[in-house]
């Protein structure tokens, strides 16, 4: 096991820059998720760590070793690909044994390690099958088995669950997480799915357009986002944003004249700001701001109420059951410390 340090990583494909100086510190044994919308450079970053893309600018360290010019096979890493990349002409056993066979390990050792990995992943009965004869979830497990048998310093996962159906995805999510708790191997996991990131990560790296927006534990990103992008990307349903102007006396005046009380802030009175409020932080209260209900969606555990407030779409999640109907008026309030302020121009958080 080893730590991974990325410093000042830049990358361009031809004239198109895709990474603009990325710095990430990944500690030994940590499960780190790189998350961001497609095209943000997260997969490129992972492939650079794997050695599948050149790193000309910046430095990648695995443990104490700078690996910029080290070929993939010498980096002591294992990677799980989105399409699994199982060798179709080899059985499950041969797939998992391939790296050790190339390394010239003894047959007895290869057997022992393959059987061990198969037992961990519940693949004992499938060892002599070809990938074609396996279901998506089983192939996924073989791909992980191929990584496990090598006992590498770092596991790399490139959107490994995106080819699975929703139910299997949730199940494999738990399995990968359980596997990590058991093996404690440093893992870097790329996904575009913020739920995967929230549920699996020790630490999330949110990326956007080739830059790191914020790094932190899942709940820290949720409760304390550094900017509008992170605030909007993390969390489902997404955070509500209401534009307004900071007034004297610790309140934001919205476009329609409504006032939202905010905690003390570094923003100056008169400054244009965006107020961010999580859907579950909006309370229904008689002294709140008036909104109009558009759609009510009861999910059983809670109810999602879509409404418009000051001309903006606002989403409320309420744990109580109400008899609301579309078109009806509703009054919403937010506790001052739950209303986050962002600079309207830069999108940066104002604390």
């Amino acid at each position, binding site marked *: 096991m080893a730590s991974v340090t990325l410093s000042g990583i830049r990358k361009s494909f031809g004239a198109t820059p895709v990474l603009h100086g990325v710095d990430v510190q990944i500690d030994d044994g940590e499960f780190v998720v790189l998350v961001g919308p497609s095209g943000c450079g997260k997969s490129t970053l992972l492939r650079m760590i794997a050695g599948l893309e050149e790193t000309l600018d910046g430095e990648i360290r695995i443990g104490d070793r700078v690996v910029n010019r080290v070929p*993939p*096979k010498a980096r002591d890493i294992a990677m799980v690909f989105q399409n699994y990349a199982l060798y179709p002409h080899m059985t499950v056993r041969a797939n998992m044994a391939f790296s050790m066979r190339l390394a010239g390990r003894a047959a007895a050792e290869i057997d022992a390690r393959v059987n061990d990995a198969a037992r961990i992943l519940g693949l004992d009965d499938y060892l002599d099958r070809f990938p074609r004869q396996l279901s998506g979830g089983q192939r996924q497990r073989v791909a992980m088995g*191929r990584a496990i048998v090598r006992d590498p310093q770092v596991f790399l996962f490139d959107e490994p669950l995106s080819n699975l159906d929703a139910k299997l995805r949730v199940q494999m999510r738990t399995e990968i997480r359980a596997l990590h708790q058991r093996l404690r191997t440093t893992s870097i996991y790329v996904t575009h799915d913020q739920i995967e990131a929230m549920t699996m990560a020790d630490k999330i790296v949110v990326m956007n357009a080739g830059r790191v927006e914020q790094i932190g534990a899942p709940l820290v990103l949720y409760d304390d986002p550094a900017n509008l992008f992170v605030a909007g990307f993390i969390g489902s349903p997404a955070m509500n944003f209401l534009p307004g102007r900071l007034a004297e006396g610790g309140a934001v005046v919205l476009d329609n004249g409504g006032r939202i009380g905010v905690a003390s802030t570094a923003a100056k009175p008169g400054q244009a700001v965006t107020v961010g409020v999580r859907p579950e932080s909006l309370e229904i209260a008689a002294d709140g701001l008036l909104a109009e209900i558009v759609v009510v969606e009861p999910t059983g555990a809670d109810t999602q109420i879509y409404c418009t407030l000051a001309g903006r779409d606002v989403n409320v999640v309420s744990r109580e059951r109400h008899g609301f109907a579309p078109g009806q008026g509703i009054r919403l309030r937010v506790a001052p410390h739950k209303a986050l302020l962002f600079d309207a121009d830069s999108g940066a958080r104002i604390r």
Partner: protein
Amino acid sequence: MKAAGVLDNRNVLGLLFLLPAAALLLVFLTYPLGLGVWLGFTDAKIGRDGIWIGLENYEFLWGDPVFRLSVFNTFFYTLIASVFKFGLGLWLALLLNEHLPFKGFIRAIVLLPFIVPTVLSAIAFWWIYDTQFSIVSWLLTRMGWIHSNINFLGSPNPARVSTIVANVWRGVPFVAICLLAGLQTIAPSLYEAAAIDGATGWQRFRHITLPLLSPIIAVVMTFSVLFTFTDFQLIWVLTRGGPINATHLMATLSYQRAIPGGALGEGAAIATSMIPFLLAAILFSYFGLQRRKWQQGGRD
């Protein structure tokens, strides 16, 4: 209404759709083949209907040294040419599969020998192999490597090599383009996975490329062997089977005996005796190189 009722029947309709293809096959494939086989058992000459003579043609051919030589030539020609076509074709396909500048242009050029009519390219080779005006001889003389022109087609072994070179030149594009298509079906992530698994370039070729390409290699090489075994145009234009029958293939000998020689029955017997060899090649590729277990879908 009644006619529509008959046409609504799936079987009738199916037969109806099959008919044109079946008619074409019967008239242009089965009939000539059957006629050829039948002629081989007769003593037909041009202008004279033959009578059934049983295996007499084959008995004669069995003892005919020229026929025996043509069988040897055919095998030699096919074997050597196929080995080179495979080697060069695979090498070219691997090269073209890399990221090259002007890739599309180069691929188009590679196809050129394949699209030029065989007779035209054979005539070009005829000039290249000319005893007096050969560009190869001229070049080598200029470079000081040789002092007299090479007699490419004038003596047995050089003639064999020369015809094989021309055949390889013509056959390589087909092999290369088919193998290139096969190479492009191999997912790049397999190579990446193999690179991470510690495979060297040679090991990636040996453990990923070759096994995944083998079904296409089987098909392409079967076709290539069949084409080479039955080659006629190139030999006929370049050497007419000479010198001293050194480049006579079964196909050219069959033509020479049957048409210019007038012995239709004997020529047909020579052509017919190619069939077992061709069938053997097809069966070999069918049973020996058929779809591997890993290619078959489903569960066991």
